[in-house]
């Protein structure tokens, strides 16, 4: 079953045609990896799904981005509600300069939950899901800025999970982290896919093979090939895909 279906998506920033006739299906409760060289439109694509591109004035799109069959760009769509359902984890960990507790409680508070008991319960639950609770349970009131990079990124995942999303978009979540922290995040992704549909942008092809079931290869704003990760890396159908994954360019 598909959580997201994208039909003939074209994205422009001013005169710049960034995504060209993108068609992709994202299966529910699985990990889909997006690979491709820098500037090929992977990040633009995931930012189209939760409408983060709306913040850029020159952004324009054509085509449909269907979440559970509903176009996220339809005029009745509430962007606040959309971003609650489609959470995002960024390339560089970006915790707020607040306490660890308040970082996780942030999404809950802005969506109107202020009762201390339910906040505490949901913050703990989210931190446990993000495999961070044991490391921070004694220092929830400390600033999140004092955590290590890897802990900060898991905190950002916890912050997203606390909103109870359906989809989590991850934009190169490990590119600023050391190998040990990267392993922890990858283990976490394996655990999370039971409950969430995950799209991960990555430059690291080993990472794509480790964490994802499906992979799409982006090049110059187009999807060249989408397939099961096992298939695409062992037996790519397109010459360009083969060239990229064998390291001939990119």
């Amino acid at each position, binding site marked *: 079953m598909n959580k997201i279906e994208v039909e003939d998506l074209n994205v422009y920033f001013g005169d710049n045609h960034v995504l060209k006739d993108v068609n992709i299906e994202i299966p529910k409760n699985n990990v889909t990896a997006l690979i491709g060289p820098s500037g090929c439109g992977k990040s633009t694509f995931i930012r189209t799904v939760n409408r983060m591109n709306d913040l850029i004035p020159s952004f324009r799109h054509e085509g449909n981005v269907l979440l559970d069959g509903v176009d996220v760009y339809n005029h009745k769509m509430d962007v606040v509600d959309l971003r609650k359902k489609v959470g995002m984890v*960024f390339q560089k960990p970006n915790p707020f300069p607040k306490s660890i507790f308040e970082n996780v409680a942030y999404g809950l508070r802005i969506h109107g939950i202020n009762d201390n008991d339910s906040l505490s319960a949901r913050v703990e639950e989210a931190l446990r899901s993000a495999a961070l609770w044991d490391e921070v349970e004694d220092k929830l009131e400390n600033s999140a800025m004092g955590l290590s990079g890897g802990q900060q990124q898991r905190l950002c995942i916890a912050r997203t999970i606390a909103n109870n999303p359906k989809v989590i978009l991850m934009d190169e979540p490990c590119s600023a982290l050391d190998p040990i922290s990267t392993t922890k995040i990858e283990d976490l992704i394996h655990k999370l896919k039971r409950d969430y549909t995950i799209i991960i942008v990555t430059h690291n092809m080993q990472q794509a093979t480790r964490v994802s079931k499906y992979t799409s290869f982006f090049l110059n704003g187009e999807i060249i090939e989408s397939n099961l990760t096992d298939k695409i890396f062992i037996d790519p159908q397109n010459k360009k895909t083969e060239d990229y994954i064998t390291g001939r360019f990119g």
Partner: protein
Amino acid sequence: MGFRVLSPRISQKIMNIVFIISGLITILILVFVLGYILIKGLPVVNLDFIFSNPIDSGREGGIFPMIVSSLFVTLIAGIIATPLGVGAAVYLAEYAGENWLVKVIRFGAETLASIPSIVFGLFGLAFFVVFLGLGWSILSGSLVLAIMAIPTIFQVSEVTISSIPSSFREGSFGLGATKWQTVYRVVLPAAIPGIVTGVILGMTRAISEAAAVMFAVGAALSLPLSIFDPGRPLPLHLYILATEGISLDNAYGTAAVLVILVLFVTIITNLAVDRYQNKIMGR
């Protein structure tokens, strides 16, 4: 390669010495001015001087009503200027983008900041005291000081808010926050140290003003009990004591109290800002 008069090693040494000397001279000037005021002024400062009323135009007695006037006008000016200055800064940094109105506001603030304070004083007399009929009062003085402080608060706040990393905003939007929630819950708390610094900068300038308030606040020697009473802030008292030859000793005493007051406020807020900064940044 061009011809070099000095070797890089020698020019490096010379410049090091130049910079050290510049730094030392700056500190020396501060120490000298402060020291001079305190040495001349502190002998007349005691609890009685601070907590009693002036007698015979200030020849004898203390400066209690002047201390109260100073704190009063500065506080009211801060209450008026802070929301306006910060509000304008939030609008420019978060909402406006780059359009003609933004350029006009920024240019306006720069111009406002460069107008001599005596001109503000004259405007205060014409507009607040006479036209609006507020008379010589704490309120008139506060309004003049507020107008003077707004550009400082605005400029410092705008720079601070603009320097908050956009990754904070993205994180907030990504969780479904609206623009206002993001500004109110993420951007402003992160910008508080800079905003407080701007407010203190504006307020210390306001508390040190004689020229701006001399036509607006009156020169009453009595204790101001409401914003509609006239008053006599410390710098104005100091000015009158010195220029009218009333008592140079008490003028120095007043100056010493003013300087200590400003230092005290600056140091306390710096400490508080550092503490807050360390807390939110986890240091």
